[in-house]
């Protein structure tokens, strides 16, 4: 069984708090900006494998905020050791979602990742020292638990079996080839990083002002 990726996004977006920082990559990025726009969204692109590290750095820098990482299965496989790196630091504000669709290039080519369908990321996370890890393949159970998952001290890994949403972009072919990568895809992470930095500075400045007023 699996849950549509966008539906998972809706569940997360409904419970996202304004102060949460979200680092996303791959398929999760496609709906995040529509469902939960925020100056605290950071796309890890084009850098498969980088989301967990980027999120960890942010979580350690800002223990006053939750950091949600929306990772992909193929992406996490590229830096599987990052689970140990995260666990070693024990960030209580770190929540790591893994969207497991079993493929690279979802919808466009659907090429199976190694050991597709066999990897239990939740078990691996617990084995490396994550405080909590869970796996979900039904919407009902995910919705029931989501509030608790987001509130409990981390690091927490949430492995979600998602479908590959074939209908969204259609398979690439001679008549429907993959598109050119625009400049924005290469500069996006930096642009959003600077937006996050500005938002954090403004928040900190407001916080200081508010403290003085008190």
């Amino acid at each position, binding site marked *: 069984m699996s849950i549509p990726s966008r539906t998972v996004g809706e569940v997360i977006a409904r419970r996202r708090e304004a102060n949460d920082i979200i680092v996303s990559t791959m398929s999760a990025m496609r709906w995040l900006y529509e469902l939960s726009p925020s100056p605290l969204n950071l796309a890890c692109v084009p*850098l498969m*494998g980088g989301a967990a590290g980027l999120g960890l*750095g*942010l979580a*350690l820098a*800002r223990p006053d905020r939750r950091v949600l990482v929306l990772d992909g299965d193929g992406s996490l496989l590229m830096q599987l050791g990052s689970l140990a790196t995260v666990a070693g630091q024990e960030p209580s504000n770190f929540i790591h979602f893994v969207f497991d669709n079993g493929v690279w290039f979802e919808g466009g080519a659907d090429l199976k990742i190694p050991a597709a369908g066999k990897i239990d990321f939740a078990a691996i996370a617990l084995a490396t020292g994550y405080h909590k890890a869970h796996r979900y393949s039904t919407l009902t159970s995910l919705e029931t638990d989501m509030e608790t998952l987001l509130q409990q001290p981390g690091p927490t890994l949430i492995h979600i079996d998602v479908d590959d949403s074939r209908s969204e972009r259609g398979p690439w072919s001679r008549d429907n080839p993959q598109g050119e990568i625009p400049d924005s895809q290469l500069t996006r992470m930096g642009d959003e990083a600077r937006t996050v930095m500005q938002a954090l500075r403004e928040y900190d400045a407001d916080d200081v002002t508010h403290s003085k007023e008190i």
Partner: protein
Amino acid sequence: MSSDKFAVPASEILRQLELCQITDVVTVPDYVQISVHRSLAEGKMPDTRVIQCSTENEVITVAAGLYIGGRRPIAIMQNQGMYASLNALRAVGLDARLPLLLLVGQFAREFSNLGHDPKTSSRALVRNTERLLDALEVPYFRLESATDAPLISKAQELCLEREGPVVVLVGAHTGWD
């Protein structure tokens, strides 16, 4: 032959890190800088957090996350690690244009090359390190003796000014004093 004459003392490197107001050392340990790692482990910079990573790719991305979150990290790794983390360096440093200060040891540099141009090393790993950085247009500085230590501060100024990575290459085993 020993490398002592060319060694930068660990104490001097730590002093430079303090001058740079480094808040976090993000690392996969460097054989060349063992004395620096030992000093950090002994608490010689108690206000600086040391974050061990599983790969040098993570060193780059964790350091980037720390910077975005308002911290002042430095990445410490071997030349081999720099080779391994090229894609992360490209994404974070060149495309995203985030400042990143790296201290990279020239692992496996033969002692007979010390005092000479590292690009003339007989070992491909060593002689190509700078060539790789040249190809990526990443500026670098060489630490070849104790008097070069202030280049770390200069490197930090440059990485903030240019909004990109700057590498400080540690040419010889750091000293134990």
